[in-house]
């Protein structure tokens, strides 16, 4: 059953940040929580965590109100700067573990382990404000999972991380997931979402646009993406109604087929125009789904 968000709504003054939003996250899954800037992702996460109260609707875990599960049951990583700047790194991690009910001795032990794992050893006595943004982000990530929560809610966990650390964080998240933990994370980077998530939720202007298994969503969209490379008349596609140019790359074109347009028609036209080098029918990438579903209004 996992997490169930049921018809939550939140208004700030005259702006409706989240409107009648419902979705579910199965236990032990990784969910990518997507949406353009200002879609209401952070507000939704805050409502799940009880930081702000929804005007309507409720959030449950295993059928029970979310907040009955206690503070150590979830880990939360806010968007950025969720640390005390004047505190020492090691003390900060111990503090975050203690806040979540980890006994002092365990807290120190775990902090040391994670500091080691993330290569922060040389900074462990430094104050947070003296660390680079990337290292601060690592501290925040550790802070969210140091008490081994059942559910991880991470708001933009990859922001500020270089490729090496991004890869490491991905490993950590997959490892946490393997240990049975449920993870919800938001991101703007669709490639990261595609790599990690089985399920996605896409919201726009506070409303649900798309939810479900990523693979099924993709196949349901149909093989509408067409990549064509040819030597010859590069304007051939203009004569075909219902064929939309998505991008003209140096070595190939990318099109979207409107409903009812057969790929065969395109292939014939291409063959007439010149030598066809590549003709590929593909599922849309998450990027394309994202842009298609929210792009017009964003």
């Amino acid at each position, binding site marked *: 059953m996992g997490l169930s968000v049921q018809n939550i709504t939140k208004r700030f003054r005259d702006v409706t940040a989240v409107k009648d939003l419902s979705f579910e996250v199965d236990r032990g899954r990784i969910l990518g929580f997507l949406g353009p800037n200002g879609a209401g992702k952070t507000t939704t996460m805050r409502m799940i*965590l*009880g930081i702000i109260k929804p005007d309507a609707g409720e959030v449950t875990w295993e059928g029970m109100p979310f907040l009955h599960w206690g503070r150590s049951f979830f880990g939360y990583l806010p968007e*950025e700067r969720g640390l005390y700047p*004047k505190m020492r790194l090691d003390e900060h991690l111990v503090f*975050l573990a203690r*806040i979540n009910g980890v006994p002092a001795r365990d807290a120190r032990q775990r902090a040391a382990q994670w500091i080691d794992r993330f290569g922060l050893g040389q900074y462990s006595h430094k104050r947070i404000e003296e660390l680079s943004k990337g290292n601060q982000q690592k501290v925040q990530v550790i802070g969210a999972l140091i008490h081994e929560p059942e559910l991880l809610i991470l708001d933009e966990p990859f922001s500020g991380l270089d490729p090496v650390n991004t890869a490491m964080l991905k490993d950590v998240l997959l490892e946490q997931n393997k240990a049975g933990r449920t993870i919800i994370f938001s991101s703007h980077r669709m490639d990261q979402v595609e790599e990690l998530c089985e399920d996605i939720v896409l919201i726009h202007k506070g409303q649900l646009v798309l939810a479900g298994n990523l693979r099924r969503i993709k196949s349901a969209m149909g093989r509408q993406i067409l990549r064509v490379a040819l030597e010859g008349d590069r304007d051939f596609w203009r004569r075909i109604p219902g064929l939309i140019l998505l991008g003209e790359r140096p070595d190939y074109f990318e099109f979207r087929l409107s409903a009812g347009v057969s790929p065969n028609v395109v292939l014939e036209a291409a063959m007439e125009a010149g030598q066809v080098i590549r003709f590929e029918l593909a599922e849309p990438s998450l990027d394309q789904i994202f842009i298609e579903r929210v792009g017009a209004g964003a």
Partner: protein
Amino acid sequence: MVPVIVKRDFTSRVRSTPYIVTTIIGVLVFVGLGFAPAVMQYFSAAFGDDSLKLLVVDYSGEFAPALLEAAAENGGQGVQLETIPPGQESAAYQRVLDEGLSGLLLVEPPEFAFLTPDAADMARNSRVQRLVNQGLVRLNARQLGLSQDELARLFASADLKVRQIGADSSEVSEEDFTASAVLAYLMLFMIYMSLLLYGNMVASGVAEEKSSRIMEVMIAKVKPTELMAGKILGIGALALLQFAIWVGAALGTGAVRRAGWFGPALDWEIPLGRIEPALLAWFVVFFVLGFFFYASIFAAGGAVVSRVEEVNQVVTVVTMVIVVGFLAAFMSFTNPNGRLAVITSLLPFTSPMVMFARLALGNPPAVQTALSVLLLLAANIAGAWFSGRVYRIGVLLYGKRPTMREIVRYMRG
């Protein structure tokens, strides 16, 4: 959870440079207050030439003997007088300059002139003034035919004994009273400064948490009231630790002074060693209650701003109320049982300072003391409730500062 938060707020500040510096400065002030009189005495004895060497030209012929008598009666005390016959003024004038004497006194009652190379030395001028006055009194008494005995009776001073009546009757000497007034003033000032300083620390601490998103993590994990209580207790402990160090320094200095090191105690010295335990207890009671009351208001203030820079604007009002309380307490010193003192010692906004001042100096009725403490306790509870709600709403509102009306609306919701 509160202890973990208290510990964090305490340890992260106790190591900070400003805290260490103010603590050390406080210790230096108390040690300095203890030793300064002795030190000053030492320096003035070493450098200040306080002997008075005067040449006197007496045109009347009657004043000089009276003046000599007056000087002799004061035990001489470094006064050297030399009478110069009239007519040799210019030679005397020259001697004052050449020999570095204190000055030349020209006398023809009721005219007196003091010619001195250093007319700006006010202390010396007033010594000469006193001496001349005494001489004049003697001269006049002699001319009126008063005997030495009659003279003594004329100037006998009344020995007024002040006695406290009622519950706590005891004789208070004026010296004791001055000493305890100075001490009480010092302690009052400490309450005042700490309410301001540590209250502001609470406000800016909350604003700091809010401006960094740590507040989101905390509020998801800890109840806002726990978070607020933890911060107030942590910072309150910080203040109490500082007091303990200062009081320790004061008592230590007092003990050292009484042991007679660095010369005998002087009569105008602040008796640091003589802090009464009861007064110290009242100090703790009123500081703690006053601090919690104001700190919760400061916390709410910190919670409604969204940047640390804005804190000042919001807390100014609270600061002003504290200043008013301090002034009221200060005025109560002169009349600890006056109407102003009684009223302001009951109002929770001013009572931490005024009631303490009254307890330090006067003997307020036990009913008033109890009522003051009870009202302050009630105010603490009301303040915690109010601030807890404002805090809970304020900490997660970013951007525009909420108006009073919005706060009220959110509190209902």
